[in-house]
């Protein structure tokens, strides 16, 4: 092998421990190896890499010093707890903080033939950038949530006022000419659309922020409830609601209502104005048992299936009213429950939305 490699690269392959150490010392991280001595304390037999040099903790520098002697109290206690775990064979990845820097440890126990831990090896990486970026993202997300909530909440008052004024004008309609009345009706529709958008944004805000309270939920009963409200919008429309009996889940009831309001609401909207069949069932999927909300409407282009759940993306054009955040709200609720949601459709064969709730 060595001969062959030598022939192909023209250089000998470096394979001794010293050669490997030389490479390790050029890495920004730390590779370590430690053991428990007879005194019950943890000592290092190897600690090499960029970070070790930076902190003056290379093998040579820390030889003979136990964990307790190397770090100040707080740091040493936290490290000790994790390393003791590793020596019990229960190693887990953990991150500690020293000053304003964050270090992720990847310990791994080495066992002898009898199953006893003889050593713990692993590496440590400086993840300060990652942790800071994550904190920044979380802050940005919180600000976004606050913005969505404020935008939807604060818009409700002026919209309510506008809604009231339009109604007052409608009551004076005897003194209005036909054209003005027509404008007024258009205005009323516009106010209604804006109200639907602020309501959907409020729902999105709740789906993102409210505490998740899991309790037994009768999904079938909830679906009937939502369907009754939808049917009230147009009592004359012929829709066959076909809900599988006894669908029970452990979930947040208010958030599941939001899910069904959006999925059944979409099915109702995109099959209008003709007759339709809308069902809720439980079926096997590649992801295990899933709940399926299905309609026999015109369907959407399968190419857009993945982007459906992004906010403000719409598979259908402006001919359908909508806020563009409904499915993104659904996705958020299902994800917060630990499940997944996906859509299936063919242009002529209806649409089905599938979600799992582990």
């Amino acid at each position, binding site marked *: 092998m060595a001969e062959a490699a030598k022939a192909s690269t023209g250089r000998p392959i470096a394979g001794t421990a010293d050669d490997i150490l030389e490479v390790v010392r050029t890495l920004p991280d730390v590779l370590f190896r430690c053991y428990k001595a007879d005194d019950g304390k943890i000592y290092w037999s190897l600690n090499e890499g960029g970070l070790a040099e930076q902190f003056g903790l290379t093998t040579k520098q820390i030889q003979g010093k136990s964990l307790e002697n190397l770090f100040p109290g707080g740091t040493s206690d936290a490290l000790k707890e994790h390393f003791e775990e590793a020596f019990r064979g229960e190693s887990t990845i953990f991150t500690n903080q020293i000053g304003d820097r964050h270090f992720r440890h990847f310990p791994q126990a080495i066992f002898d033939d009898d199953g006893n831990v003889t050593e713990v090896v692993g590496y440590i990486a400086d993840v300060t950038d990652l942790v800071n970026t994550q904190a920044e993202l979380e802050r940005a997300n919180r600000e976004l949530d606050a913005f969505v909530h404020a935008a939807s*909440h604060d818009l409700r008052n*002026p919209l*309510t*006022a506008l809604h*009231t*004024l339009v*109604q*007052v004008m409608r009551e004076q309609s005897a003194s209005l000419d036909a054209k003005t009345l027509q404008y007024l009706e258009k205005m009323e529709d516009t106010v209604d659309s804006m*109200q639907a958008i602020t309501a959907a944004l*409020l729902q999105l805000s709740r789906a993102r922020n409210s505490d998740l309270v899991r309790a037994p939920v009768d999904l079938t009963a909830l679906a009937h409830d939502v369907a009754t409200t939808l049917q009230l919008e147009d009592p004359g429309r012929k829709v066959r609601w076909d809900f599988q009996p006894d669908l029970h889940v452990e979930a947040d009831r208010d958030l599941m209502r939001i899910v069904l309001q959006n999925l059944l609401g979409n099915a109702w909207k995109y099959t209008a104005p003709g007759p339709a069949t809308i069902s809720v069932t439980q079926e096997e999927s590649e992801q295990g048992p899933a709940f399926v909300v299905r309609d026999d409407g015109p369907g959407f282009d399968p190419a857009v299936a993945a982007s459906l759940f992004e906010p403000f993306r719409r598979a259908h054009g402006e001919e359908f009213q909508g806020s563009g955040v409904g499915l993104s709200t659904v996705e958020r609720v299902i994800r917060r429950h630990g499940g997944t949601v996906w859509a299936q459709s063919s242009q002529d064969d209806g649409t089905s939305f599938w979600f799992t709730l582990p």
Partner: protein
Amino acid sequence: MKIAVADDNHDILETTRLVLELDGHDVVTVSRTEQILPALPGMDILLQDMNMPGLDLAAHLKAIRGQPDLARLPIVVFSAELPAEEELLAMGADAVLGKPFEIRDLRELVRRLTA
């Protein structure tokens, strides 16, 4: 009818006043939480927004109910966030009106609660 409307939003206060005055009611509007209670004696009904700065609605409704002359004052709570109706009724509201509301629903409530 003497009607008190408490809301921190001036658009709501003014349009609600407009509707009620068109119906011939006397309307007192209050936009600050601490001004609500002193404005209530002599009123026939209170229309109260559920979210005003510094307002603890439960304590506020309890304080109103604790005053002998206001114990039976009809109170309608404006609510922008549902579902909260049951909770609001349990706090002592006589009725809940979701925002945005239909003015015929507002009229019907005022009529029914002051009958």
